[in-house]
């Protein structure tokens, strides 16, 4: 059973390379049971989105 700590490493690497089938199965099983890691995953996607939007932010320049 994957620990939360290892799950965070896997979710970070998922931003950089496709996970193997084995890794995905392990991670999905873990996520199904772990709200904290589901939140972590959402936060990783958000960071990626924020970085992409960094140069074309909608807010007014200061």
């Amino acid at each position, binding site marked *: 059973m994957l*620990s*939360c*700590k*290892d799950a*965070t*490493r896997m979710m*970070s*690497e998922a*931003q*950089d*390379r496709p996970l193997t089938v084995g890794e995905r199965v392990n991670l999905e099983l873990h996520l199904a049971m*772990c*709200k*904290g*890691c589901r*939140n*972590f995953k*959402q*936060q*990783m996607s*958000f*960071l*990626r*989105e*924020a*970085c992409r*939007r*960094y*140069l074309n*932010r*909608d*807010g*007014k*320049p*200061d």
Partner: protein
Amino acid sequence: MSDGGAMRDQDEQLFDADWLEGVRRDMVRFARLQLRDETLAEDVVQEALAAAFDKAREFAGRSAMKTWIFAILKNKIVDQIRVQTRTTNVSALSAAEETMDQTFESLFKENAHWSPAGRPSDWGDPAEALRQQRFWDVFDACLKHLPENTARVFMMREFLEFETPEVCEQLSITTSNCNVILHRARNGLRRCLEKNWFALGEQPC
């Protein structure tokens, strides 16, 4: 509209002082974050703008122009990072990086599962934050707060949009080291945003 008219409009757009100043300010902020050196940042921005003026007529509109100016800027930043990292060991741990790793460890119980206080929280609809200027100020502050080498690897990956193997190659670090550094950066940023934005309930009305 005739070609001549379109070209004149582009020139007017390009030389609009307010627009240009806004773009320049974005460029300097971006370059400073990556290079962490005021003078170098100003230099690469000047070089990128000079190159952009030469080709100004080839662009249809400000948006394409801005994208292109930043593409030039990114190349110049990468060149500069290569020079800087020739004399730096990117994988060496600074005290700040060790502290980040200790903080990360403190989020977990003995069995490597989240402790109640360490568990990541639900950010609701975080996309809403991207529409707020104050969020971007917090985001900038959190990026600046990352230790230099950690920030450099993260920004090469996420802002200069290199694939991870390219980042490792450019900075002469191993893939596993790269993964460790990116994980450290992402966790640090996420914690910083959680503490300084999402936990404060700074949601729009």
